[in-house]
């Protein structure tokens, strides 16, 4: 029988989404609903001397105006949920609305509740806040310097943490190294820009004490937990519903002040309350990504063997530690310093800094792109120093295929890999030698062509819960599923993860339908409502399939085992004599003695004739906690032409060969790679969130922040190899973040390769025409 596993069936979530029948949070309307708006600080750092809301309160249609002083006793401050150990982590209180001081442009100052969105806007304009501006500090390295303005009275010097990763003897390796290279890298701050802004609709029923909160969430169970803490409500009286979610990319993981504020207002007023960000608000009030200043160095032998890596990294956390903020630039970053290579000696020191900017948290890749980028830039720089081919230097240092599982110097164990396999395939697709010849020829004509290579691996499928506890993650990292079979044999599967574009309503149905010998239409996947889904930890860290999908598979297998017991009983046969064929249990050798799955579902649900000891009903729950993370990998190649007159970078070809283990739906996996790579190319060429020295966000709207457009982006060429993971029974890994992790390094390596003849070694992303042009001018000036 053919299986659905591995086939590119069309997505089951699409019919509603292409007809306008999806339900996003802002689509939810409730009787008696009123609207909330939040007044946000226009200053990066200021004392609040006075707030006068009299005029706003007096406006017809305004129900209430709340300020920080109204909340101090009612709400527990916004928690940070990643209590990074051994780092002297400082977590100053994060009030829902600022009291005494604002600490970034966008910090909430007051909340208005009114009968319409328009009245909310008018009322916000009428609130008068008297600020006394203070000095801002936006650069994480500068924030730690003596004399920098201090954000939090109880965090001297703005240092949130100092975290060290070490393995081997890096100082020793550098002391006796034949070759050393160093770079200073700025990881541009990015705006996640999920196309759907955040939104919340809260409805509190004072009669039952129940709060229902529709929220744009990648992890509704985490939001239930944190909301119950913030609002001081018993957790079983909080219901989070995360319906269709219009992208997240990490920005819908955290617990924000805003959603809790909306819930608070509903509890106070006894009316349902809706709040929806507009985009400019989203750019200030929703987390940002990246923002590192990195001093990095690599040492090795003249023969091209890498012997050590050392880093000092200043990571901006923004004004407050967001939910996962401290874990992203440390655990998800520093532990990956070995990349795809056998690097025996590693040392990294990461400083977390509070700055007067929007909080920084997980953005697609979260820590891993910043690691891959510095490693892959260093390896290229090393190769150039040696005069060696960057491809060959990589090959020489790869972890060999027969050495997996392989423990790197930072202490983590990679599950499986075949790095040469993806590299060779990518080189073949490009005709690498041919391109090098073309490049040399073009250079003679004064044209600058370049090729960039990135061979990455990454840590995902987060992850074993025991490890979560050890690294200070404030939750588990198992995931869950309930497979419920109805009397007619139709199946609903309730999951603890929360897909929001990744297609698991389809791929998880493929898993279950295969198990039961069903067409995929007979299986529905349900996610997002904490009242009917089992405890889970959500969708991020490319974990949904590897962890949540495995729970689905195990639950389906449990259901099938029970159905088999019932079949044996009804067929008066021994269970051992049954075989599963063509969607039926049949007695081996007597194909006419058979029971199909749907018939067994009916018999289990009516329970007229159950064997002794077997309970009625046909459903099972599974919680799957993996034994390790999974480590997808791949080789990306990009060729570019740089126009030396204008600094314009044109991508000629982009080739991505990825290995994410076994693939359930190739079409969906390709889609994930497309989106991820384009986000990485955006990071490399055009995206940057810019603050001026006063802490004003200069890229505060979509007019100024360059989200990639179709006309700016290349056609991608994709291929795969398949190296199953031994960590889970389906042999799957993760693919949601690989593209973003690989692409920025690939593109910047290509541009630096193109401009190497001018003596240019490194340019910080994003490589806008102005930046590249300036670098070329500097190089020419230097040469003259």
């Amino acid at each position, binding site marked *: 029988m053919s299986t659905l596993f591995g086939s590119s069936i*069309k997505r089951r979530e699409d019919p509603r989404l292409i007809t306008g029948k999806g339900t996003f949070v*802002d689509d939810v309307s409730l009787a008696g609903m009123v609207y909330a708006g939040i007044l946000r600080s226009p200053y990066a750092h200021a004392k609040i001397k006075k707030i006068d809301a009299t005029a706003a309160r007096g406006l017809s249609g305004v129900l209430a105006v709340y300020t920080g002083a109204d909340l101090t006793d009612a709400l527990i401050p916004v928690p940070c949920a990643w209590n990074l150990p051994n780092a002297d982590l400082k977590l100053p209180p994060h009030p829902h609305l600022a009291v005494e001081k604002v600490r970034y442009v966008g910090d909430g100052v007051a909340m208005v509740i009114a009968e319409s969105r328009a009245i909310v806007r008018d009322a916000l304009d009428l609130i008068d806040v008297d600020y006394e501006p203070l000095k801002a500090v936006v650069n994480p390295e500068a924030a730690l310097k003596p004399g920098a303005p201090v954000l939090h009275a109880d965090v001297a010097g703005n240092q949130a943490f100092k975290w060290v990763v070490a393995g081997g003897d890096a100082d020793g390796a550098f002391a006796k190294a034949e070759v050393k290279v160093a770079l200073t890298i700025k990881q541009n701050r990015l705006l996640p820009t999920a196309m759907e802004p955040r939104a919340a609709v809260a409805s509190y029923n004072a009669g039952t004490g129940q709060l229902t909160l529709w929220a744009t969430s990648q992890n509704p169970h985490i939001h239930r937990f944190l909301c119950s803490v913030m609002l001081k409500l018993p957790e079983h009286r909080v219901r989070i519903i995360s319906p*269709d979610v219009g992208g997240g*990319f990490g920005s819908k993981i955290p617990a924000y002040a805003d959603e809790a504020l909306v819930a608070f207002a509903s509890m106070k007023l006894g009316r349902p309350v809706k709040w929806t960000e507009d985009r400019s608000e989203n750019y200030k009030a929703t987390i940002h990504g990246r923002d590192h200043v990195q001093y990095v160095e690599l040492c090795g032998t003249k023969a091209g063997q890498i012997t050590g890596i050392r880093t000092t990294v200043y990571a901006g956390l923004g004004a407050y530690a967001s939910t996962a903020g401290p874990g992203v630039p440390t655990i998800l970053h520093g532990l990956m310093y070995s990349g795809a290579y056998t690097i025996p000696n590693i040392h990294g020191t990461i400083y977390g800094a509070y700055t007067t900017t929007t909080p920084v948290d997980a953005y697609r890749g979260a820590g891993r792109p910043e690691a891959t980028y510095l490693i892959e830039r260093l390896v290229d720089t090393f190769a150039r120093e040696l005069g060696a081919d960057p491809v060959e230097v990589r090959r020489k240092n790869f972890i060999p295929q027969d050495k997996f599982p392989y423990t790197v110097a930072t202490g983590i164990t990679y599950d499986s890999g075949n790095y040469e396999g993806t590299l060779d395939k990518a080189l073949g697709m490009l005709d690498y030698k041919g391109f090098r010849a073309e490049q040399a020829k073009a250079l003679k004509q004064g044209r600058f062509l370049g090729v960039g290579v990135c061979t990455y691996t990454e840590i995902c499928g987060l992850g074993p819960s025991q490890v979560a506890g050890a690294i200070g993650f404030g939750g588990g990292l198992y995931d869950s599923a309930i497979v419920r079979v109805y009397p007619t044999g139709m199946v609903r599967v309730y999951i603890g993860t929360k897909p*929001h574009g990744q297609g698991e309503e389809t791929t998880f149905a493929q898993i279950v339908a295969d198990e039961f010998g069903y067409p995929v239409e007979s299986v529905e996947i349900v996610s997002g409502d904490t009242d009917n889904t089992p405890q889970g930890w959500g969708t991020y860290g490319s974990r949904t399939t590897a962890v949540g999908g495995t729970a689905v598979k195990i639950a389906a297998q449990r259901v099938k085992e029970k159905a088999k017991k019932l079949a044996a009983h009804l067929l008066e046969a021994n269970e051992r004599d049954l075989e599963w064929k063509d969607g039926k249990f049949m007695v081996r050798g007597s194909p006419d003695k058979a029971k199909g799955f749907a018939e067994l579902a009916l018999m289990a649900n009516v329970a007229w004739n159950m064997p002794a000891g077997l309970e009625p009903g046909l459903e099972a729950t599974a919680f799957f906690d993996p034994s390790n993370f999974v480590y997808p990998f791949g080789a990306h190649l990009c060729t570019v032409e740089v126009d030396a007159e204008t600094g314009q970078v044109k991508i000629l070809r982009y080739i991505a060969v990825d290995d994410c283990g076994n693939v359930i739906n190739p079409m969906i996996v*390709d889609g994930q790679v*497309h*989106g991820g790579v384009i986000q990485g190319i955006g990071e490399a060429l055009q995206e940057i969130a810019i603050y001026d020295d006063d802490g004003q966000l200069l890229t505060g709207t979509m007019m100024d922040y360059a989200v990639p457009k179709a*006309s700016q982006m290349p056609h991608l060429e994709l291929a795969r190899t398949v190296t199953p993971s031994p960590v889970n029974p389906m042999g799957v890994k993760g693919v949601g973040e690989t593209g973003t992790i690989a692409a920025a390094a690939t593109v910047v390596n290509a541009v630096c390769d193109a401009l190497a003849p001018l003596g240019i070694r490194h340019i910080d992303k994003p490589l806008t025409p102005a930046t590249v042009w300036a670098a070329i001018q500097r190089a020419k000036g230097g040469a003259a």
Partner: protein
Amino acid sequence: MKRSVSLSINGRAHSVDVEPRALLVQVLRDDLYLTGTHIGCDTSQCGACTVLLDGRATKSCTTLAVQAEGHEITTIEGLAQGGELHPMQNAFWEKHGLQCGFCTPGMILSCIDLLESNPDPSEAEIRHAIEGNLCRCTGYQNIVSAVQAAAVAMRGAPVRTTA
């Protein structure tokens, strides 16, 4: 002060009381519960709010409801006819032209407008035509494939699938 406007949407007449400053997208969503039209920005960049106004792709976040009076408006809800998907909807489904689906209604309507004026666009023409519609999920590649597939279907015998 509110005033009454008559809007023709998806072939049906509606009379709504709106503030003169009300945007068409707000009236569609909040007054008429046609929530398939989305809002992704406040500076007219993203195209999530795109509807057809007399057949032409128009950003409903940049159109006052009062300006739409007397025009024929098509939203994503009005595209499938008698349970049959429009070939463009079908092509987005076939080619995996959407992930989260938030940009999709606006994207589909812009692409329909494109094929009206250019029934056989090149890849570059497609990419240029959808510059005003941002998608953060798909990287656009499968959207391009979807438009190409729809162009073929709409030029030849329309391939239609039941929703």
